[in-house]
């Protein structure tokens, strides 16, 4: 798999970002805005599943309302994250936090658009249910894995 990382690293996009003083931090800032929006959209629903936040509102209604923003912010994360990755792909290949992040990201996306989606759409009960609580804990735990890895790639 290393050849793929090497290929990414030597693309003109990767090279351009490495040669610029300000491109990397600016793209990183967009990535952080995406992170904030994603966590906001996720937290609103997960808090509700845990019995905090907007407890009077039906879970399905909240989840449907913020879903376009979840998709939009994820798109922003990918659009900014891929160039960041490409510019330092070889470093990422050797970075433990990077692999933690990618594994968590894969799992959380899978979980969000299958089980979590099903739970939020069917959880009609006003009280928080065990299934909802477990879903929220898994979702937040995996997102924390993504955020932990993301921050610590930079420290390695």
């Amino acid at each position, binding site marked *: 798999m290393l050849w793929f990382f090497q290929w990414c690293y030597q693309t003109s996009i990767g090279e351009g970002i490495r040669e610029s003083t300000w491109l990397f931090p600016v793209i990183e800032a967009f990535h952080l805005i995406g992170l904030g929006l994603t966590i906001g959209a996720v937290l609103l629903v997960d808090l509700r599943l845990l019995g905090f936040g907007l407890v009077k*509102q039906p879970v399905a209604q909240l989840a449907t309302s913020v879903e376009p923003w979840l998709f939009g912010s994820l798109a922003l994360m990918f659009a900014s994250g891929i160039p960041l990755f490409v510019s330092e792909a070889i470093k990422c290949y050797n970075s433990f936090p990077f692999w933690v992040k990618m594994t968590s990201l894969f799992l959380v996306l899978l979980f969000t658009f299958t089980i979590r989606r099903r739970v939020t759409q069917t959880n009609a009960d006003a009280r928080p249910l065990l299934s909802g609580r477990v879903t929220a804990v898994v979702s937040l735990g995996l997102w924390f894995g993504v955020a932990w890895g993301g921050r610590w790639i930079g420290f390695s």
Partner: protein
Amino acid sequence: MSPLDFFAWLGDSDWSTNLHESRYAYPLIESVHVWTMAVFFGSVAMFDLRLMGMIMRKVPLGEVVRRLLPWTIAAFAVMVVTGTLLFFAIPLRSYQNIFFRSKMLLMVLAGLNVWIFHSRVFPKAIDAEAAAAPPRAARIAGALSLVLWTGIVFSGRMIAYNWFDCDRQPQPDIVNFLTSCVPGE
């Protein structure tokens, strides 16, 4: 004692030096700062979008404030504590950092926006709620908040990459003026 002397003195203290050079404490504090930022910015953005009438239109504004604001405030408190520690570890360089300065300025503006919103706009918005769409003032406050906090996140991220650092001369006079840098010192 000028601010420059004061922050130089602060940076020479054992506490500041140890924090700056620590292997785990500094990165850990920085991590907590950015993770909490996600919670803070996320909750602020969701509220702003609600103010602008873009999400959760069916949820009363008062309920959103009552149920979400405590989380926003808690996250903000953690950001202030961790942010202060980060500044304390590198005081003089941060004080002379143009991005740190723009961040502080934008924070004052964001604070003003919060103050005006909660003292003037919010009470009226609650009254008008039963009627129809969110009032114009509420939508403006929401949009302003989003723009200002986005600017704050951008400035915050740039602090660590400061390409206008005092040690990177020559810089245009205007930059040295804005950063209180004295080239050659």
